[in-house]
């Protein structure tokens, strides 16, 4: 990966601005897709770009710069989930009163889409992340492999396994209530074998 070469101190802001303007929305969307508290997304985005600003020398050149940012965002979101219990409990009433940034609403087109999102959430964490990165961040297998630190083959296997699971279970979730449940249960049992 080609890292940015040395730059003059005065260039730092220009370089950061290009990075920020190019990828602000991508990182915003990444964080929004992975948190249940949309009002916290601006904080997460700020944390990602704060890291980028502090470590500007290590940010690679385009097109890999966005992957580097995704990598930071992944750690920031992960830390957010793991270590924010106390703040999660406080945010709604306390911090929410102090600042309430405007955040876009999450799309919720249809129950079929919601059902699929729910299924993606039920995947193993790493499989779910592969699905989100490919389907929603629209990364290719090699980019996902770089980001997750695994082989392209491993990504392909996780992707195909997850898609099969989603296809099988989405059909199940869509099942007509009038259809015999026993028949569908049998189908599920067969899949297990």
């Amino acid at each position, binding site marked *: 990966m080609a890292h940015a070469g040395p730059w003059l101190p005065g260039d730092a802001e220009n370089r950061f601005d290009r990075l920020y303007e190019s990828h602000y929305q991508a990182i915003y969307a990444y964080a929004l897709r992975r948190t249940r508290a949309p009002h916290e997304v601006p904080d997460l985005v700020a944390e990602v770009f704060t890291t980028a600003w502090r470590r500007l020398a290590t940010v690679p050149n385009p097109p890999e710069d966005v992957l580097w940012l995704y990598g930071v965002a992944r750690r920031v979101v992960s830390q957010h989930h793991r270590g924010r219990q106390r*703040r999660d409990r406080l945010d709604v009433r306390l911090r929410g009163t102090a*600042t309430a940034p405007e955040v876009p609403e999450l799309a919720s087109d249809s129950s079929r889409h919601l059902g699929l999102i729910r299924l993606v959430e039920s995947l193993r964490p790493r499989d779910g992340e592969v699905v989100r990165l490919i389907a929603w961040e629209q990364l290719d297998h090699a980019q996902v492999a770089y980001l997750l630190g695994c082989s392209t083959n491993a990504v392909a296997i996780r992707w195909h396994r997850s898609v099969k699971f989603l296809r099988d279970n989405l059909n199940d979730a869509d099942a007509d209530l009038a259809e015999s449940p026993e028949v569908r249960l049998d189908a599920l049992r067969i899949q297990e074998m």
Partner: protein
Amino acid sequence: MDIETLLRDSDPVRPAHLPSPNSSDGLSIRSHVVTPRRPGIRPAAAAVVVVAVVMTVALVVLVALPGESRQSQGAAAAVLDRMAMLTDRQDISVKPGEYYYTELEGQAGASSGPLVQGGPTVTSYEAETVQTWVAPNGSGRQVSTTDPTPRFFTAADRAAWVAAGRSLRPLFPAPPSTVHLFGVGYAFTNNPIIRVFDVSHLPTDTAKLTKLIAQGHLEVKGSRQTELKGLGPVSNCQTKACVIFERVAILLQGPDIGATPARRAALFKVMAHVPGVKLLGSVVNPIGDRGTGLELVQHEPAESVRCNAVKIQEPSLSTTEEVVIDLKTATLLSSETSYSARVVTRSESRGESGCGIALPAGTYPITPNWTVLLHSGVVGSNSRVPG
């Protein structure tokens, strides 16, 4: 439509609705980020400090608990021991061809924020009813139905909602119920709010069960057991006592696989031994059912942390875990977790995660979570409900 196209279309984020880097939010974040570097503890380091302090406090609380409120705890333990005896005598066995039905109501889609510029934070939520039928082999059916009518945790929230001119009618057309059929070992794909737990492998020995629950080792090899989380979206428990109380409440509440009278009795016995549980007497749960209340309160003292070189006084927190039980049927009618935060000193907010509470000193309630049992019992098919 193929699954990959459907997946892309299911993106919960609409790119067209994303703020641009030149929006007010975008410019604000940018101006916050690009500032001269300042010494001080970074958020991650601050988090380490917070965790260390919390762990120390948790240890102190654990050591201190046995000496506190012995009388009230004795009464709570007596009630729970009685529940264990009653449960032990009940017949909840499910025969082949039958299902154990559990109908629970919980919160879905809670949202919070000011409704008008500069106004108070208002929290509203939609209720989700989850009906679960579980066969003796662990397969089953789950139907989740969301009611899009706005609901409120407090009367003040409701009043602020109305004052802001918001409608109390459904926020959006009621979506169709989500129906999920799961095979043996596949209950893990169920509703993320109300989960099915396989308790068939749990021991009935109180000491062994307490140890397992405290460790959180409830996974069953090959069954893809779901993680046992808190009563709300995240667990608020920092102490061992709180963790055990909360987990037992979840397991008693169901829906579950493999529950037997002996296992439920064992769970009540585990709860009876949790230090600090208090008997509340006769109480009414969120939907108006009367029962006997038991609670465990966890106190977390105020903490001083440094963030971006600014000394921040975090509020103290009191977390209350409460269950309401029916002494006649030995069932857990509802579980609830609620919190209050006491701001000791107003701290300047720096806008970055975790930095300060820009509120005057005082006590503030935090959004609770509750789950209520609406119906349960053995039924003859996976579409019937108890008469």
